[in-house]
Structure formats: C-alpha cells, structure tokens
C-alpha cells in the first residue's frame, strides 16, 4: 500500500485520460460495420427461429420434398461460393493498388450475385405458379420470409457493388474507397455465411424431413 502511495506522489495524479488522441477519419468504420452485421445476424436468427417453429406446418399443403429441387439449390450455392472467392480476388487486387483489376473482379462478383438472384427468382416464380404461395401454409410463409430476406440482402449487395465500381472509377483507390471495399467484403462474405444456414436448415433438412 505504502509503495503505491509513494510512487503516486512522485507523478502528477491523472484520473482522466485528457490526452487528445488523433482519430483518423473512418478509423472505427470497420468495427461499426461489423456490429451492424451482428445485428443483421439477429434478424436472420429470428427468421430461422420462425422457420424452425413453423417449418413443419404444411396445412395439408406441399412439403419441402414436393417443392425443392436440390440440383437447383446446389447451383445457387455454387454461385454464392464463386462470388465469395472472386470478391477475395478483388480485395487482393485492391491491396496491390490495381483499380482496374479491383473493378473487374467486383464486376465478376456482381455477375455471380445476379446469377444467384436469377435462380432464386426463377425458383420463387415456379413455386408461386404451382400454388405454393406464401399464403398457402405457415411453412411457406416462413420459407418465403427467410429466403426472401436473404435475397433482398444480396440485391442490396449488388446495388452497393455497382455503386462502389462507379466510386472506384471516379476517385480511384483512396482511403475511403478502400474502406468501402473492405466493408462490402464483410457484407458479402456474411451473406454467404447466412446462406450456409439457409441451404442446410431450409433445403437439406427440409428434404430430409
């Protein structure tokens, strides 16, 4: 105790950290965006919980076995996986300071994203056409809400991709654009993580049920 008191007496006592730290612009953006993704994760958790509770209530309507074509889902999953690694290539190009390369790989990622959305819309259209609409049963309501919310996220991801390509073309690889590329990287890979849950729980487990 006494030792602490003597050392404290030698130095000026500081109760607060009054030293003004430099805060470079956007230094907390990455963490903030990560926390946003975590809150997004909660949205999906709620929708997964809904699906888990309601997924077996077919109301004498069609069951996953009658509706889902696993080949199509496998193709869809491949689209998202490919788009994940092509986004990785875009980040690598950015690290090397290559604007053109970054834009090209972002464009390829966007095309895979659009491919995914196209297949998903085709599936939804097919389901609605054969009468498996969201109104048909609790299973279908929760299915369309969960998978549709994921699809909406991908849609906004694609819009963001296009915006980012324009920004890169206008300003090049400035610090703000690098930050944006990394944020969209997190968003895009996060959507792929959610899709792992979707194809496992909704499609594979659904067909098993």
């Amino acid at each position: 105790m006494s030792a602490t008191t003597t050392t404290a007496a030698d130095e000026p006592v500081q109760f607060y950290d009054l030293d003004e730290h430099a805060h470079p612009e956007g230094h907390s953006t990455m963490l903030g965006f990560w926390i946003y993704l975590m809150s997004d994760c909660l949205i999906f958790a709620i929708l997964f919980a809904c699906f888990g509770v309601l997924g077996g209530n077919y109301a004498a309507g069609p069951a996953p076995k009658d509706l889902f074509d696993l080949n199509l889902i496998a193709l869809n999953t491949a689209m998202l996986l490919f788009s994940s690694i092509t986004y990785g290539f875009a980040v690598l190009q950015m690290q090397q300071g290559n604007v053109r390369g970054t834009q090209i790989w972002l464009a390829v990622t966007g095309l895979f994203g659009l491919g995914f959305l196209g297949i998903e819309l085709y599936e939804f259209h097919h389901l609605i056409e054969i009468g498996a609409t969201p109104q048909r049963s609790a299973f279908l309501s929760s299915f369309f809400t969960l998978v549709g919310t994921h699809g909406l996220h991908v849609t906004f991801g694609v819009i963001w991709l296009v915006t980012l390509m324009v920004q890169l073309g206008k300003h090049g690889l400035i610090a703000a654009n690098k930050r944006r590329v990394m944020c969209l990287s997190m968003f895009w890979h996060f959507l792929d993580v959610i899709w792992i849950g979707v194809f496992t729980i909704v499609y594979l487990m659904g067909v098993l049920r």
Partner: protein
Amino acid sequence: MSADPHHHAADGHHEIEMPHASMRDYVIGFVLSVILTAIPFWLVMERPFSNGATAAIIMIFAAVQIVVHMVFFLHMTPKAEDGWSLTSLVFTVIVVVIMLAGSLWVMHHLNTNMMPQVHDTSQLP
C-alpha cells in the same frame, strides 16, 4: 497497438488498419467450403445413411463451414480490432443460441402438450 497515433498517420500508406488478406487464405477457404458444401448435398441426394444420422452430419458440416468462412473470408482473429470484433461476435452467438434454442424448446412443448387430444367422448362427464 498503443503506438503513437500521430506517427501512425504520418507514415503515409495505411491510416486505418485493415485486415490483410492473402491469396493463400482465400484459396484454402474456398477449397474447404466446396468440400464442406458438396458432402452434405451428396449425403442428402444419395442417402447412404439414415435420416437422423444424415441430419446430424450436415448440421456439423454447416457449423464447420461457418467457422471456415469466418476465419478465411472474414479474417476473424482474436486480435482483430483489439478483440472487439470477436467480443461482439461471441455476444451475438450467445444471444442467437439462447433465442433459437429457447424458441424451439418452448414451441415444441407447446405443440406436444397443447395439441387438441383425441378424446374418448364416452369418458367425458
């Protein structure tokens, strides 16, 4: 991390710390993901095992693949953002597990205990 921020800003190239990605990480992540995706799809399409076993296996594969994505694609390390990324992730996982397990558990009991039972009308008073 507690290095002088002025010096950090002055050295020019990276003002903000960003996770460093490497080709090696992305390729390893991609190959692992393809394997971890292909096997569950094959298991469900071909059904070499019983339904229960298949369900358990594909759930494990999904969990492993999520970790693979976190590490190799999202560059999640205990040190990222001074540990705050991992802290918020752990917090979210705890909340998600409580919510998912709780919802499924409660609703399962509701379903099993409150389903209209088939009553034998002759037994009614």
